[in-house]
Structures are given as C-alpha cells and as structure tokens.
C-alpha cells in the first residue's frame, strides 16, 4: 500500500513539444483514482510512467516515500492489468499467475498456495490448467486480474481493462473491480475514456485533456462544480449544453431564452460569456424560467428520451420523460431553474461564484 505523488511530471519525445508539459497529481494511499479523458490526452502515458514502462522526462515521481524516476518497472512492486489482457499464451492459467512469483524466486509451495488462494477468490479454480486461448474474454480478463492480485502489490494500475468486453460483461467486471478494491484497499490508478466507468469506480477522478490536468475531484464534485466547459461536457451523458450568451445590464440573452439576473450575479459576469445547462435539468413542467426552440429530432431511450432543440445555429439537448417528449418539427417550450445555469468565460473557464442563488426567487422570466 502506498500513495503516489506526481510533481511537475514532464513527458517529451525527442525534440517535439512535450506530450505532458507538467503534471501535478497526488493519489492518496488506498484511493481509487480514475484518469479519464479523450484519446491522446496523455492518460495512458501518465499511467505508463507510473508503471515504469515509459521514462519520466522531468519532474518527481514518488510511490510512497520512494523517488522512483529511475527505478525499473519490476522493482516498483506495481501490478498492471492491460487492455489486451497480455496473458502469456503459451502458459496455463496457473503458470500465468505464478510467473511473477517464480521470477522472484518464491518457494514452490508458497507459489502454489498463493495462486490457489487468489484463484479461489476470483472463481478461477476450474480454469487453472487451461491456456488463455481456451478462455472467453471475460475469463481472460479475470485471469489478468488474478495475475495482478497474486503478488500483493503496493499499487494496481488498470489500462482500459474493460474496453474489449461486451456491455454486459463490462458491467459485471466493473462491479468485480469495485468489490476487489473494497476488500483489498490497494491504491489503484485506472485509465479509461468511458465516463460511466470513471463515475462508478473512482473515489476521485482526474480529467485530462491535451496532456494537462483539467480538474481533479470526486465524481459528485466534477458533476456539480466543473471548473471549465471541458469538464462540464465530459462528465454527464448526454453532455452539458453550452451556448453563447450576452449580458446587457442585468439581462442575460441567449439564443433560447432571456432572463433577468440578480444584481450581484450580473456584476460578476462579463458581457460576452458561455452558458451551460445540463440536459437533465430541463422539463416541461415546473416553474421558473422557460426556453424556446424548434424540435429537430427526438430519440427514445425507453423510460426517457432526448429532444434536440435548435434556435438559429445553436443546438441544445434535453433529457425528458417519455410522456413529456415534444413532436418533431414543432416549437417547444421547456422549463428550467436558473440556479442550474453555469457560467463560463469565452475561454471556457468557469466564472467563480456565479450560481444564481437563491433558486428562482430573484428572477422573472422574460418571455423570449
């Protein structure tokens, strides 16, 4: 068990611009940290640097108290689960799980004991004498987990371990990984591009984009208080609607609505800004403010549906109950609580302390 500390970590290949220009991240002992972001954002590179599979160009990487910049991967006492499982195809499940122990010259009796205990915990006992080629995808992933577990490492690293599995298995393995973390309590770093995995597994989530850390926080924090439009749109499905707005005195105008802002809020806002509103914060009932738009398309998802609204060039998605879904081609009026609005500057940074409080009281709707 160990904490992981990244201080001003830089990764640079040759003379090109740095892939990761300087990353600071503290992962606490026993924490489940999820690194999430679009492909090419540097999350896998970060994980591979922690693993020791990529060198650190600059900065300090510590596991526990130990500076590990120049410590070989095999000496860091880290176990990693790969996206491709990376099992040894010519060895049986038992040999796969025993490999790391045998490399470390563990006595045979102890190897057998540890492998069997881990196999029992994961339900792998009937498969011990099979080779990876004879196993299903889910079983292989389970073996990969077992191989990581059996050595009792200080840190677990997961590199998109579930992306090769079908939807049902993925949910199942996700629960399994969560359960393992609860029982073992080992510090874990988990890379994914799937925000649902990130939200459900992570104690905290680090969102990365273009090699930079966008925000770190608990799933609830990231959802309710995003620092910028990137985080706002990354967390939540479908993503937060963001559209441009203009402030004129205390009035806020957007393509969809026009409302009166409280004086204090208005004072903190620039005249040109971006406004965010989550699709799930829209409804056809309720009080507060209204917005208007033309319904371009609707998608039914079962007990709820998505309505795509347009006003001019601006588009917006609303998540509504099935019976609330408007007809395609009509003009719809939806309601929202102005307290659910988020304000960002034109660079996409959240404008601090700008939630419209208290909800709805100081506001009147100006019919758009």
């Amino acid at each position: 068990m160990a904490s992981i500390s990244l201080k001003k970590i830089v990764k640079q290949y040759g003379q090109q611009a740095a892939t990761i220009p300087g990353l600071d991240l503290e992962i606490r002992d026993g924490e489940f940290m999820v690194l999430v972001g679009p492909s090419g954002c540097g999350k896998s590179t970060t994980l591979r640097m922690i693993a020791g599979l990529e060198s650190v160009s600059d900065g300090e990487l510590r596991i526990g108290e130990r500076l590990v910049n120049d410590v070989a991967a095999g000496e860091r006492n880290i176990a990693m689960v790969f996206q491709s499982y990376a099992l040894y195809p010519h060895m049986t499940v038992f040999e796969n799980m025993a490999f790391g122990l045998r490399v470390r010259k563990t006595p045979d009796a102890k190897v057998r004991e540890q492998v069997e205990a881990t196999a029992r915990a994961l339900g792998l006992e009937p498969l011990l004498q099979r080779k990876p080629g004879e196993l299903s995808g889910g079983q292989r992933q389970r073996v990969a987990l077992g191989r990581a577990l059996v050595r009792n490492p200080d840190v677990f690293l997961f590199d998109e371990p579930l992306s090769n599995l079908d939807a049902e298995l993925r949910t199942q393995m996700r629960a399994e990984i969560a359960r393992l973390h609860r029982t073992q309590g080992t510090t874990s770093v988990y890379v994914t591009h799937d925000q649902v995995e990130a939200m459900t597994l992570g104690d905290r989530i680090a969102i990365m984009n273009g090699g930079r850390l966008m925000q770190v926080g608990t799933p609830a924090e990231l959802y309710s208080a995003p620092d910028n439009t990137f985080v706002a749109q990354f967390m939540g499905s479908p993503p937060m609607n963001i559209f441009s707005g203009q402030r004129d005195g205390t009035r806020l105008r957007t393509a969809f609505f026009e409302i009166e802002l409280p004086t204090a809020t208005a004072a903190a806002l620039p005249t040109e800004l971006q406004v965010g509103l989550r699709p799930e914060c829209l409804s056809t009932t309720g009080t507060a403010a209204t917005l208007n738009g033309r319904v371009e398309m609707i998608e039914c998802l079962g007990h709820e549906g998505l309505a795509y609204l347009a006003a001019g060039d601006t588009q917006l998605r609303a998540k509504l109950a099935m019976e609330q879904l408007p007809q395609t081609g009509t003009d719809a009026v939806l309601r929202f609580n102005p307290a659910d609005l988020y304000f960002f500057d034109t660079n996409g940074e959240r404008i601090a302390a700008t939630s419209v409080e208290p909800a709805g009281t100081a506001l009147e709707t100006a019919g758009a």
Partner: protein
Amino acid sequence: MTILNWLRGLFILVMVAIVLYPVLWVVSLAFSGGQSLALVSVPEGASFFEALRALLPLPQQWSLANFEGLLTEQPFGRWLLNSLIIAAATTIVGVLLACSAAYALSRFRFPGRERGLMLLLVSQMFPATLMLIPLYVIIVEWLQLGNTWLGLIAVYSITALPFCVWMLKGYFDSLPVDIEEAALMEGASPVAIFWRIALPLAKPAIAVTALFSFLTAWNEFILASIFMDEEALYTVPVGLRFFVSDFSAQWGYFAAGSVLVSLPVVILFLGLQRFLVSGLSAGAVKG
C-alpha cells in the same frame, strides 16, 4: 463447361508430368542397380513401341545394389555424417544468432539500428559467387580453417543470417509488446523475457528459419568444394559430384546418393509443415 474442366485437368496432368519426370528418372536410376544413364537397352531393329519404352522412367529390374555399393564401397556414410554435423551446427549457431539479433532489432532502439537492418538487406543483393574469393582468403588463408567443419559452419551460419534476421524480426514485430511489458512489470529481466516469453511465442518463425539454415548448409556445393580438399571431409553434394566427372560416369551411385540426400529434407518439411504455414504467413494478419 465439362470440356473446359477436362482441359484444365489435362493441363494440370501435363504440368505434373513435366515436374515429376526428372524426379522419377533419378529414383529409377537409383533402383536400377546399374551405372548407366539409360534405364533400358533397346535392341537393334526394335519396333517403335519398344523404343518408346526407353523413355519411360522404369528400370528393367529393381535392385538395391546402388544403395549397398554407395554405403559399403564408397565413403558415402562418412560424407553424410559430415553434412549432418555441419548442417545441424549451422542451424543451431545460425538460429541462436538470428534470434538474439532479430529480437534486439525488433524491441530496442539504438544508434545504427536502421542502418544495420538496411545493410543486412544490401548484403543479399550481391551474387553469392562474388564472395568466393574473399571468403577463401579469410577462412582458408587467414583463419586456417580449410578442411575443417568449423570453417564451413561459420560461413554457412553467417550467410544465412540476413534472411533469418529479417524473417524473425518481422515475427517479433508482430508479437504484442504488452505481453513482454507485463512480464517486465512482474520483475522479469530482459534475458528472462527473451528466453521464457519471446522465444516460445516465436516458435513458428524459428521453425522456418531453422529449416532455411539447415537447407542452406545441406545443399551448398560451391563453397564446400573449394574449402574441402580431403575426401574424408567432403559433404554429400561435393562427394556426389565425383561420381560423375570427366573420368567416371557412375550415374547409379549419383542417383542413389541424391535420393538419400533428399530424404532428411523431405522428412523435415513434413514434420515442420504445420509451423511453416503459420510461420510464412506470420504478421500478415493480426490475431
């Protein structure tokens, strides 16, 4: 449609006959018991059909005399042994060198890597005969390795190396790096990864390169005939040549020797067939 099929069948039959005819002739010669190139003596004034019989690759009588003679009267067994030792040693040395070189070229980045690979390719573009004189000077005059197994083993394993390295490098490239990284994280050293992970996974490609090395050494004639002066040190191809020269025409021995010399190759091919197919197409399709 059926006519077309018949024609197609006929065409294939003719092609097969053209390919097999010389082979059958050699086999027949070997079992004919005589030393003459002709299998059947056609009497004077024979009819057209009797004369035609001389063209069939069938001996007048079947006999193992040529094989017996070859193995008892001639030093053929001795040559076979020389060839086997040289070919086996070439295979072992060649494959070992090729595996380690190919693995390094595939997995590690070091100065001169690209150029080294290109150089290996370039070396294949010169005709082999071009190297005869330099090789003779190096092996026989400088290293004093003429008339030794070692000299031939060194030359064969090195000349087979460029092909083997490229073949194996291509295969190592197609093996997922993840597997080796997983082993690295478990604390295995690069040497352990090479022996315990990479080599077992590269078996199909190793089979192909081993076969290639073996055949290079087994069939080679020119270098062996230049390096080896003593009859007791001849390899089979060199020895066989002396059955048919300006002063003798022992076609029976020659044919029997040819049959015997092909046997190990045929057996090897059959045994390694499974690997050959997967090895030669390696890397073409992932997974």
